[in-house]
């Protein structure tokens, strides 16, 4: 079966199975070289194994919910979309959510995804009470925070075992609305200053115009958000506080031809977005879906980049050198004139975990349609990140070289050592882990 990541650049013929029980799964584990695949939302080849890909669609039951603590126990194939559909009407929301709700809990743990509240609440792993993990011997262990195996599993890209069940804490909310405040930042320094000045905001993220140059380099709209209380809703919304009017679900029905996407159209899009943002400054109430998941409203949005697909680039940069490194990255990108529709800048807070992506500092995320100049540009960006002591997000990586990975990940040797010592190296592996030599 041909699998590829969400970026559609890593097509590969994989043997895929869909076990229905722990016994069936254990038989797959015994074959070795296994990687579990959830919703297929990693952008590259993280959830592909030519020999032994396991589709976790056979494990998608919810098991228990504690109304007192908000703890949900569910199988790894359950998606955040299902969690929200089930529990938001009862006043609960994921405590950490990435920019799409169509990810599975297993995938969210494996990639240790982060959200707009990372600076305050940390990554997805920080909301997890325990994980049931199937090891190389087919046995299931319950791992808890503090254990080495837990630390390597959160952010370990599925390379420590098969995540079977997750206990995670949801957060109590009074409504399904967010109070969003939009602050303009005419250049990079202003954007960073805005983040630092709003460290107490629950959610913060910036859309950054990566094609702006000169004195406007890094101009951004910084979006802050707070969960709205019931009292903050207009009278007519209070009867159904958890059901903001749903945005229409749109579909990208065809693959956009490559010529539609070039410096000009992207520049025009960014210009329009910036102006629209300026027009919408100040505070307004936004439904949870458009606030957290703007792209989820466009089903199959990844097809907008056409048949060749696209690559994501997301790096984390240490706080001390973030300003200089971000400026260098933006200079390269704007000079190349091929930025993405939406580039995102975000302040990261402190981060636990042995192999998680975030680090205290800043993260920059963008996507590039795949064409001739892209590879060279990405190589230049890689070098800037490595020099700054930054690292890359494996959930988005589809093309990093082993050399770049080694340079950016001093933690890789320890992970390799742990995998060898625990007998995990032969049992679990993905196309990505082979490429990176993990």
């Amino acid at each position, binding site marked *: 079966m041909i699998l590829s990541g969400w970026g559609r650049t890593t097509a590969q013929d994989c043997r895929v199975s869909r076990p229905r029980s722990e016994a069936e799964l254990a038989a797959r584990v015994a074959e070795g070289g296994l990687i579990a695949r959830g919703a297929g939302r990693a952008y590259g080849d993280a959830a592909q194994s030519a020999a032994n890909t396991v589709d976790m669609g056979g494990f998608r*039951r*919810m*098991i*228990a*919910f504690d109304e007192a603590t908000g703890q949900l126990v569910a199988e790894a194939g359950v998606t955040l979309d299902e969690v929200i559909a089930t529990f938001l009407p009862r006043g609960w929301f994921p405590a950490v959510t990435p920019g799409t709700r169509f990810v599975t809990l297993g995938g969210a743990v494996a990639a240790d995804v982060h959200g707009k509240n990372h600076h305050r609440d940390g990554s997805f792993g920080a909301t997890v009470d325990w994980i049931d993990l199937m090891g190389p011997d087919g046995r299931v262990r319950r791992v808890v925070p503090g254990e080495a195996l837990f630390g390597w599993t959160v952010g370990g890209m599925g390379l420590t075992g098969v995540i079977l069940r997750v206990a995670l804490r949801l957060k109590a909310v009074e409504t399904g609305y967010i109070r969003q405040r939009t602050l303009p930042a005419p250049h990079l320094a202003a954007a960073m200053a805005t983040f630092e000045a709003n460290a107490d905001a629950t959610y913060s993220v910036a859309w950054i115009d990566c094609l702006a140059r000169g004195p406007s380099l890094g101009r951004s709209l910084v979006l802050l958000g707070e969960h709205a209380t019931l009292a903050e809703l207009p009278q007519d919304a209070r009867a159904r506080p958890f059901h903001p009017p749903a945005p229409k679900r749109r579909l990208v029905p065809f693959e956009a031809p490559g010529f539609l996407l070039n410096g000009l159209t992207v520049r025009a899009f960014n210009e329009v977005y910036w102006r629209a943002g300026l027009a919408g400054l100040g505070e307004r109430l936004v439904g949870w879906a458009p606030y957290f998941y703007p792209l989820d409203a466009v089903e199959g949005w990844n097809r907008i980049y056409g048949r060749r697909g696209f690559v994501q680039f997301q790096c984390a940069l240490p706080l001390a050198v973030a300003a200089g490194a971000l400026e260098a990255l933006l200079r390269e990108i704007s000079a190349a004139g091929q930025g993405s529709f939406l580039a995102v800048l975000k302040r990261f807070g402190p981060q636990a975990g042995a192999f998680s992506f975030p680090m205290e500092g800043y993260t920059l995320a963008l996507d590039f349609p795949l064409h001739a100049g892209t590879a060279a540009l990405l190589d230049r960006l890689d070098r800037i990140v490595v020099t700054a002591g930054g690292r890359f997000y494996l959930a988005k990586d589809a093309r990093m070289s082993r050399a770049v990975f080694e340079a950016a990940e001093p933690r890789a040797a320890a992970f390799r050592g742990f995998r060898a010592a625990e007998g995990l190296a032969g049992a679990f592996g993905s196309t990505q882990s082979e490429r990176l030599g993990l």
Partner: protein
Amino acid sequence: MTKGAVLILGGRSDIGLATAHALAGAGHPVWLAARNAAGLEPERTDLALRHGVEVSLHEFDVLDTAAMPGFLDALPGLPAVVVSVVGLLGDQAKDEHDPAAAICVMRTNYEGPATILGLIAERMEARGSGAIVGVSSVAGLRGRATNYIYGSAKAGFTAYLSGLRNRLAIRGVHVVTVLPGFVDTRMTAGMDLPKKLTAAPKEVGAAVRRALEGQRDVVYVKPVWRLVMAVIRAIPERVFKKLRL
């Protein structure tokens, strides 16, 4: 207002569970009936947790026709809706040389479901209300060399549902025939199915819900199958018998 309970016969199957989710999502309590029903406890918990409805498990064997009246008597009551998703594909190439296996396919797809739905129909007719949904198959619309044992049983079931509908239409009981084409389930795992013609179990569940809400009689899960089967049925037998379908 609480909605009436839905009895699902074949509650372990992918289509049965998908239908359970679709109808529990609409607020119906669900009674899952299957063999080894106790093994469905994780599904029961999942359904109840997600949809906030009562879900119960009931032991049911579609081949044990003698036990059927007792099975119905032991239920919490007469359901508002019954959905039969019971089915067995069998292995045509093997079964055509093995009468015992062929009989099992025939009984599972026709005799069993028709018998239990017939018994429920009696009770619903007496009550003067209810809905009966039979999940049959487009395979019953024309016998083909590659699956005529299964197809013939489904043909019988489809005809039975049609007759039942005809009989009960004036008695306040609504009968729905659901005709899925290929469905991506455990039953078809490993088969190379054409993507455009293959439905997800979820789509079958949604089709059942729509059929009930819209008072439909015969529904194709994927509309393209209506066309495909019209073509297949239009081929003269003289030609058809030489085709490899």
